[in-house]
């Protein structure tokens, strides 16, 4: 997993609530057996017209936001399915950070497994960043994970909270499985105990 330390980039505004995983990556693109290559179908139904051409009105098709690395969105972002194809598609497009008033649990968790930082801020602050993002490509933002701060191009800062373990894993680019494999003796001990206590499991 790629480390997340500090990111400076263009933020794209997506002022919709309840952006669901079917919107982020429709099911016809879940038929892959790989993790890569999903970026071209990110937000597919909003991003392309019937004839397959780009919808010029969709934010990520506008010249200012084509290289956006940050997404600002409404509440309950990522609701719906557990498909990790949603963060894979965002990452493949180049999005490394999403800022919203709230996220759906499974999606939120999936982001951290892929080096994406989801940031929860109060609605008023998200509204302020949304207005900032609407200024286009000159409105770049800096996200500093170590110091838990977002700084706008005008120098205004917003502090955010994050779970300390998740922060540590992102900063170091740690692989969960390797971490847990180091605890394998505890797992084996639990299994021995359970074989006696709940043998039917």
């Amino acid at each position, binding site marked *: 997993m790629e480390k997340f330390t500090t990111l400076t980039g263009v933020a794209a505004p997506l002022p919709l609530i309840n952006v669901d995983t079917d919107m982020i990556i429709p099911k016809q693109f879940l038929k892959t057996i790989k993790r890569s290559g999903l970026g071209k179908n990110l937000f597919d139904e909003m991003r392309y017209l019937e004839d397959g051409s780009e919808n010029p009105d969709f934010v990520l098709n506008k010249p200012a936001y084509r290289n956006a690395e940050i997404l600002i969105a409404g509440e309950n972002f990522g609701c719906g399915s557990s498909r990790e194809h949603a963060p894979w598609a965002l990452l493949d497009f180049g999005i490394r950070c999403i800022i919203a008033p709230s996220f759906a649990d499974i999606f939120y968790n999936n982001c951290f497994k892929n080096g994406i930082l989801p940031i929860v801020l109060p609605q008023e602050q998200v509204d302020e960043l949304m207005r900032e993002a609407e200024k286009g490509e000159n409105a770049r933002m800096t996200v500093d994970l170590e110091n838990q701060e977002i700084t706008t191009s005008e120098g205004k800062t917003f502090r955010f909270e994050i779970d300390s373990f998740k922060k540590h894993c992102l900063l170091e680019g740690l692989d969960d*499985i390797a971490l847990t494999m180091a605890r394998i003796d505890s797992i084996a001990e639990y299994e021995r105990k359970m074989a006696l206590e709940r043998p039917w499991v």
Partner: protein
Amino acid sequence: MTAPKTLYDKIWDAHLVEESEDGTSLIYIDRHLVHEVTSPQAFEGLRMAGRKVRAPEKTIAVPDHNVPTTPDREKGIENEESRIQVEALDRNAREFGIHYYPVNDIRQGIVHIVGPEQGWTLPGMTVVCGDSHTATHGAFGALAHGIGTSEVEHVLATQTLIQKKSKNMKVEITGRLQPGVTAKDVTLAIIGATGTAGGTGHVIEYCGDVIRDLSMEGRMTVCNMAIEGGARAGLIAPDEKTFEYIKGRPHAPKGAQWEAAMAWWQTLFTDEDAEFDKVVTLKGEDIAPVVTWGTSPEDVLPITAEVPDPESFEGGKVDAARRALEYMGLKPGQKLTDIEIDTVFIGSCTNGRIEDLRAAAEILKGKKIKEGIRAMVVPGSGLVRAQAEEEGLAQIFIDAGFEWRLAGCSMCLAMNPDQLSPGERCAATSNRNFEGRQGKGGRTHLMSPAMAAAAAITGRLTDVRELM
């Protein structure tokens, strides 16, 4: 004396392998269910790292999302990408030595129907699957939730998950349900009341007389949609109905093990005075047969209502409702019962069990669906299908004009050829009415199997009570 615990607290504590100071915990997983869409990358990860499946005997795989449901599916899957995914699951199951129900096995079906049916799902267990509707298994008093593919790989390799404990939420449904009101109406009404993010960060325990009175099938329908209310998991304390359902199933404990299991299962309830972080109470009598009008499962109204005016909402919901009405092709003030449909879909992990088919058949018996309506029943498993044939339900559906399909997820998420066309309007017993969920441009109204059957007869959204 120890502090009173909720059911969730008890199951959590029983699966805690390790806990660090900040509360980050290693939780042991008793059952890992696997399907073809969210697992190939996980198995590939194992292979690349030279790792094995730690507990293949606790890992159960079945293809469901992609499989065709037409009677000719023995001939194979036409869509190449779908076929590759199912073949990958075949190969991974064999290579890693996990339990497997292949496409043409009578026990094949939707993973959340197969698990309980085969007795894999038991009270007090932790159950995970790379699928958000894993919450279904909570009906047995099992802590069950969906995970992403990275976590699928983590569970395959270590049989554990790294987690922090969620908060406790109680949803109590008091009293009794009115005639024509089912488990699906209950679960939709709850989401209508709490919103799609109402349960975020929480594990819900459903309780109250209405929940006690529900069958195991009905309880599965309620828990299935916990995720649509934002909660990763929904739980119902096990009782005699639960034990009765489990007893004798192929993988249920037997003999002395059954007795030992029962002794523990009977301790699985929320202690008196245990505290919940959030409590929601609904009266069973207040719940009507409901349908959804928009593109979020929280867009729920009684069938007797009218399409709402977006301006009647607040905040971001105003724009969301406006967008939803445009997508759905509806106007504020339109009576829900005036909305004409093109298609009816009965099935899914929400409503693809035998009781659901019985409820729909009861309404359809001796009747025909409206001319021009496309209607299909997709049983949740090969065994549900066989039982429905034995009970004569299949014939009722066929005589009414329904297509009688083979088991799979089908038009719930339309990854197989069962899809809506742009603008096509569907009365569906599934769980999500998101834009494009059942096919690009498709319009979904969620409802109970009985309501879907009623809609098939009249060709419009219908109050099932008028046909009872």
